[in-house]
Structure formats: C-alpha cells, structure tokens
C-alpha cells in the first residue's frame, strides 16, 4: 500500500531495478487473437523449457531483483494478428511468428541460453528476413502512442507498469497541477474523441469541471461494437492500467469521485484484465480513499454490457449503467450536464483515455507535434478483410490510406486489385481507388464520407477507425 508520494517514487524505483535486472525477456502475445492460436500453451511451454535447463526465470514480477533472470511475460496485442501467435525476445527485439509449442525448446536453447536468431520462425517478405520487430515494414511506418506498451510489458502486472513510470502522469496531475492546469493542458493538446465523433476532449472536461454538483462521474466507453473494430479491445487487454490512469486524471481534473468502464460482454478477456488492474490499483492505494495522502478519493467500477449494439451511444450507455433499457434519448441536455445518474459526466472512449497520460506527462506541445494541426496525435486502426496483414496498427493522423493499405497492410491479399475500403463502421463510409491519397484524419474523412454516404459496400477490405 503506497501511502504518499515518496512511497510511490520508491516503489517505481524498486520495480524499475527489478525490470532492468532481467537480462532477457520473452513476451508472449496474450491478446484474444494469439490466445485463440494457442499462445497460453506456448507461454507454459517456455516456462517449462526454461526451468528444465535450470535458467532462472521470473514469471510473476517480484520486488527483489534477480540478476540475470529471464522474464517470461504475457503481453498485450502486438498487432500483427495475421502472423500469430507471436513471441518477442528482448533486448534484441526479435520477433518470432506463428510459434508452436514444439518450437519452445529450440527458442530457449538458441535464443535465450544462446544468442542465435532462429531464421525459420522469422517474418519473411519478398525474400528478405526480418529478425527485428521494428524493422518489419508492418511496424516501420507506425507511431505507437496509445498502444505504446501493448506487446512490450506484462499486461497483468501493475508493478511492471510502475517500473516503466506508469501512473507518473496521474501523480503529476494529483500533486503538481491544479484542476484548471489539467483541463487546459488537455484542451491545448486538441485531443479529439477517438470514438469517431472527434469532439475536443478538453472542452468536455472544462464543461464538467466548471459545474457545481453533488456528484460527477467519469465514464469510459469500451462498448466497441462496430464490426471489424478491435482497437479498444486490444488496449483494454494489453495496457489496462493506462486506461485507468487516463480516467484517474480526468477524475482529478473534474472533481469526480467515481468512474465506470462499460465493456462489451463479448470481450471477456478485456473484462478480466481490467478487473485485475483495478484490484491491483486498489491494493496499491492508487484507487480508493485519500489516494497517496492527497485527500483525493476515486474508484472505478466495471459494467459489463449485455449485448446491445446501441449502448455504444452515450445516453444509451449511461442508461445501461443505471440498470435500464439502453435507449438513447434526445439531446440536449448533454452528457456533460445530465449524464450518468443525471449528473455531470465525462464520457470518453478507451483510446481517448489512453492518450491522456502521454499529454500530461509530456505536455500538449509535444503531443501536437505528432499528426496534423486540426487532428493531432495518432489513431489506431484495425485492418481486416481482404488484406495481406490483418491486425492492429497505429499511425500519425494524416497518414494516407495508401500508406496504411500498401506499406503497412502489405497490399491486397494475393495481389488482387484494390476496389474499396469500408472505414469507420456502420456510420462511416466507403472509399475507393480515387481516394487512396486521402489523409486519414477527422476532417478529411468527414468530408469524404459526406460525398460517399452509406450506399452498399463491397468489402474488398475493411479497415476500422
């Protein structure tokens, strides 16, 4: 239990030391995709194989550093779902694809005990072998911000999150910034709602912040219902603490004491990981009463959806948390005034909250340096359908459709002709060949969508924003 800021600093230091002491790390992707492909068997096999060879390995992250031990972790989604199950070896940054349980002995023998890269498990494209993950064309053009830690840390350990300075932004907001400082910083960053609407997050926060009310709420919309979309699922599974941190910062900024995360029932793994994360944060004293001795209270609850697509809409979502039928209502009054339990409510989507710690930690200016003037930052996209590399990607706003489909996505499956792409789910639209050079940002897409509308879609590929 961390009682004050000093405790927090010390804990971060200790965990960083333990993390640094791990000479090698094996990160097994444990996102829904790779788990379905047998990643958990691989995880168990790697541990067994390591132990058999007498190599000291750390499975659960401990306080005492074990010099030279091998850390074996279940990480979040690496994004390259087409090639799963994926195993990453650090510090080299090697990526092994389509790993099977029978490969584990060789991986340990050659790459952990030894220093050899296994060519046969490498990603090969156009006759070229890519040992390092970051050099693979799929990753090269990406800028990972919301997904920064997905695939790089253990998704089930708060200690590891603390080791990489996680919750640092929350602590900064709690102790070093006034409520106005926080909302102004978020407003300056021009972070826009990642759920699709693109409404400035800072403006929402300012509106909730300035209201006098007996209670205020922070709600995270994890009801990612649009077919083909799994960005939010991946963040919830792969870096749950980052979402909590974003919500906790919003709590400080707006003076809210309670938060809710509404998650689709179809995402059982995300629910589980978030539950673990919330329990861990409570045990650490980062959620609950008098957080780190600051006098600020905040707690988060999870609400599981029950299979209603419409609950992704704000007022339907809050109705559902209240235990009612998820029926959208006419607005105004808006959620920022009369939201959950009729109180002022900040309602943001998962990816939006995941961007907040970066903004608080590095400042609005640093955030605005990425992406475009009117759509700063990055955007995660899910690539699905008739494309060579299905998976999860994150690129700066303003990257063109061509770069996403051909450079990152590897082009059409089997080299067929590109016809059209459906983007943005049922409320989005279709883009054709002529629009391949369209920059992907809120305003360009809205303009293009207005021209195309929602006429019948021929899915040659489905990217999801």
């Amino acid at each position, binding site marked *: 239990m961390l009682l004050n800021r000093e405790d927090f600093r010390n804990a971060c230091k200790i965990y960083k030391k333990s993390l640094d002491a791990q000479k090698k790390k094996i990160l097994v992707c444990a996102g829904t995709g790779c788990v379905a492909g047998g990643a958990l068997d691989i995880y168990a096999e790697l541990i067994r194989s390591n132990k058999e060879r007498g190599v000291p390995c750390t499975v659960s992250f401990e306080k005492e550093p074990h010099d030279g031990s091998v850390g074996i972790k279940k990480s979040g989604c690496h994004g390259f779902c087409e090639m799963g199950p994926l195993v990453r070896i650090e510090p080299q940054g090697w990526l092994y694809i389509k790993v099977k349980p029978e490969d584990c002995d060789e991986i340990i023998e050659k790459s952990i005990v030894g220093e050899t890269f296994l060519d046969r498990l490498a990603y090969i494209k156009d006759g070229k072998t890519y040992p390092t993950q970051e050099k693979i064309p799929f990753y090269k053009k990406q800028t990972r911000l919301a997904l920064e830690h997905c695939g790089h840390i253990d998704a089930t350990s708060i200690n590891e999150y603390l080791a990489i300075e996680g919750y640092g932004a929350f602590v900064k907001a709690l102790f070093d910034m006034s409520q106005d400082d926080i909302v102004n910083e978020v407003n300056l960053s021009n972070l826009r709602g990642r759920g699709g609407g693109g409404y400035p997050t800072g403006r929402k926060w300012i509106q909730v912040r300035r209201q006098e009310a007996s209670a205020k709420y922070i709600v995270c919309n994890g009801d990612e219902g649009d077919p083909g*979309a799994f960005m939010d699922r991946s963040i919830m599974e792969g870096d749950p603490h980052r979402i909590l941190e974003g919500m906790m910062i919003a709590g400080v900024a707006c003076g809210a004491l309670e938060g809710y995360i509404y998650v689709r*029932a*179809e995402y059982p793994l995300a629910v589980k990981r978030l539950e673990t994360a919330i329990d861990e944060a409570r045990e650490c004293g980062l959620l609950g009463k008098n957080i780190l001795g600051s006098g600020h209270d905040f707690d988060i609850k999870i609400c599981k959806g029950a299979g209603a697509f419409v609950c992704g809409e704000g007022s339907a979502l809050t109705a559902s948390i209240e235990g009612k039928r998820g029926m959208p209502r006419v607005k105004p009054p808006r959620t920022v005034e009369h939201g959950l339990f009729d109180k002022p409510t900040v309602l943001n989507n998962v990816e939006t909250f995941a961007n907040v710690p970066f903004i608080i930690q590095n400042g609005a200016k640093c955030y605005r340096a990425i992406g475009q003037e009117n759509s700063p930052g990055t955007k995660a996209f*899910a690539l699905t359908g008739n494309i060579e590399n299905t998976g999860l990607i994150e690129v700066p706003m303003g990257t063109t459709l061509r770069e996403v489909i051909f450079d990152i996505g590897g082009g059409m499956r089997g080299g067929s002709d590109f016809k059209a792409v459906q983007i943005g789910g049922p409320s989005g639209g279709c883009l054709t060949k002529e629009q391949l050079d369209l920059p992907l940002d809120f305003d360009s897409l809205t303009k293009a969508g207005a021209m195309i509308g929602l006429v019948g879609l021929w899915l040659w590929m489905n990217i999801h924003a």
Partner: protein
Amino acid sequence: MYEMIDSKEMDKILHKHQYVPSNIIAMLQDTQAKYRYLPKEAFFYLSENLGISTAKIYSIATFYENFSLEQKGKYVIKICDGTACHVRKSIPILEKLRNELGLSATKVTTDDLMFTVETVSCLGACGLAPVLTVNDKVYAAMTPDKTTELLVKLKEEN
C-alpha cells in the same frame, strides 16, 4: 415455492450487488451464468427483494440480446457474423453446425440440452476471421470441416 431456482444462490447474487436496483443487469448476468438462462422465477425473486416490478425486470431482460429466457445447451456455440467474419465466409459454418445438430434459426438448442448454436455480432477477433466461440473459448480461422471435427471432440468429452 421456487422450483427452478435456489434461493440461497439468488441471495448470494443480491448480496454481491448490495441489493441496489441499478445493478439489476449485473444480477441478471450472474443469474444467467448460474443457470445458463433466466428462469422466470428469478424475476419474481429479484422483484420481491429489490422492490422493482417484474414487468420492469422483464423489459430489461428482453431488451438485451445476451439474456435468454429459454434454457440453453451445455455448450453454447456462437458463430461470429460480424462484417469481417461474414466476408471470410462464416455462414457456411453456421449452416454446417445447424445441419449436423438438427437446429435452425428458430430452434437453437438441441433437445438433450447439449448444444446451443447462435450468431453473435462481432467478437472483435477480426484478424482471425472467421471465428466461433464455445463457452467463450475462441476458435480461430474456422472452416466447415474444422467445425465438424470440433463437434466430434466436444461430443467425446461427454
């Protein structure tokens, strides 16, 4: 008075959610997790203990697609028919399952209460399309033939 439900279990659920009416959805979810469907008696029991009408509970249970008022099989197979799975041919898998188990769009559970076959909008595992789940375990990149093998395996488990 209650034959289909165990009032002790229901009390546990009520207690877990602090008898707060706004937690009704979570209570129904826990009830369904226990019985694999919502027995009608559970509505009466919850209504009495929470002080909200059975009509209201019924209206909530029928609004959300995840709730079932009919008994389900031991294995609930959900075929994803979201866009990504649909274009990678999920329908032939659904048809195969229905054929093999003698089920249809209206009859979703086998008479021996072993299998329930239904579709789900999107499981968010689009990178692995087409997918299906059996009691929440995900099976990736399915084909009608792989589905037959899976059924054989599930039947052997019993």
